[in-house]
């Protein structure tokens, strides 16, 4: 402590700081891995690249290992450091986010499995494309992880808005697939696989949205789950503007 003028001027560069930084960077690394998994799974589905699909399925093991490592690290920090305030929110947000990131990995694996089944089914005629839905979801995952990296609540809010577009695209894909199955009962076999793949992508988008909600909690200490998007944007922006108009050491009211 400086002891001068009531200011805390510098921070300890402690082991604890390194542990927290390590936690954050591992989460980002795990997020980057699943973002690539989703992208590759969607490409494998669109191009019929079986090798790529198998590589996604194999890659899920690495995601699972990262999940176990991060859970263990969070447990250790809670037990040994008893984090408080922002540190506590970081550990809490990481525990929550890791589960969602792992599930995004599972979704990528499901899409890759469906890609292989689609290759084996050899569909004829027009096959509705999941490329747009896949790209929307991959971008959501990328932005949710990016928001975590930059501690940026505006990027996180962007993910929430993107989820509406992804849900719309999901419904549109489902309509196209239903129509295709009605017109041609022989298509049902492979179209069901595409329905499951679309469902997995839609779920991955929901997980990305969850991650962005944890980020808002981490930065602002505000739980925005189960709040309408409009209310959420207003709350987040109000808080952000209050924080930016007051210097860090000036009193803040809530």
């Amino acid at each position: 402590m400086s002891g001068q003028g009531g200011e805390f001027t510098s921070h300890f560069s402690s082991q604890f700081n390194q542990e927290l930084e390590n936690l954050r960077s591992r989460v980002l690394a795990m997020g980057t891995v699943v973002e690539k998994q989703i992208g590759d799974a969607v490409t494998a589905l669109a191009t019929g690249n079986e090798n790529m699909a198998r590589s996604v399925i194999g890659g899920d093991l690495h995601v699972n290992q990262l999940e176990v490592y991060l859970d263990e690290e969070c447990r250790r920090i809670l037990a040994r450091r008893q984090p408080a305030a922002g540190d506590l929110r970081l550990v809490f947000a990481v525990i929550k986010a890791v589960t969602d990131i792992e599930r995004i990995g599972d979704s990528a694996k499901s899409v890759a499995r469906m890609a292989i089944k689609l290759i084996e089914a050899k569909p004829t005629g027009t096959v509705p494309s999941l490329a747009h839905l896949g790209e929307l979801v991959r971008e959501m995952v990328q932005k949710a992880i990016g928001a975590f990296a930059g501690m940026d609540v505006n990027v996180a809010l962007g993910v929430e808005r993107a989820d509406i577009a992804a849900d719309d695209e999901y419904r549109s894909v489902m309509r196209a697939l239903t129509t295709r199955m009605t017109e041609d009962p022989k298509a049902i076999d492979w179209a069901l696989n595409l329905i499951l793949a679309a469902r997995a992508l839609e779920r991955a988008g929901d997980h990305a949205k969850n991650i962005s909600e944890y980020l808002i909690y981490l930065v602002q200490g505000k739980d925005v789950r189960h709040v309408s998007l409009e209310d959420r944007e207003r709350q987040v922006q109000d808080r952000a503007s209050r924080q930016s108009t007051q210097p860090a050491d000036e009193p803040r009211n809530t």
Partner: protein
Amino acid sequence: MDGPIVNAPLRPDVGATSIAEETVKAEVRELSFFYGSGMQALKSVSMSLAENKVTALIGPSGCGKSTLLRCFNRMHDLYPGNRYDGEIIIHPDGVNVLGPDVDPIEMRMRMSMVFQKPNPFPKSIYENVAYGLRVRGVKRAGLIDEQVERALTDSALWGEVKDRLQDQAYNLSGGQQQRLCIARALAVEPEILLFDEPTSALDPIATASIEELIAELRNRVTILIVTHNMQQAARVSDYTAFMYLGELVEFGDADDFFTNPKQKRTEDYITGRYG
């Protein structure tokens, strides 16, 4: 006891609007304190104590938290040259503890203090607890017996000492001695209990038993506790205040205080990042 449902003059810039829902037992109003040397240890501190709740004061050494605690029972009067500026109002009667006409002895009867190191009198266990009652003029043996038993029960010590009440207090373990001091404080039925780092000399098990006791007592008495142990403040307090260099930096509901403090200095302190 019906104190006002207040509108306490909390400084608006230190947060904590939630105490407005509580009955206020005591209000510190723009309190400054100067030691005889001229050193100013408190700088216009304002905060309220909610009735039958635990309020914890935390902060680094020399921040003024113990000085503030000791203002409540006028302990600073014991040394010449010390000077108070401001008020500490106790409800429901609205008396100013620091008023020039107020008898410090009377205030100390209304507010009992438990110190860092257990400090039983060199007397029997029974006499330690009965002492305050005798000083108050209680003479009837039956009544004293009754009060001693109740105070020892309330301090979770009765079961351990009921068969050895005439033993010397010094024969008790450190944790038991501290609970005896709490019993001694409770015997005179104070309105506010002041704890000055009550567990810093105790082992973890004795510490846990004192914290358990504080949790039980909070339903009956208003508690103000100074502690160096942040986790202890997080465990026992309903409201928490962070002091630094004689100023109150932040005061608020303990749940919010330890998960989402409003002030950067509070955040830095409770996350161990001051340097």
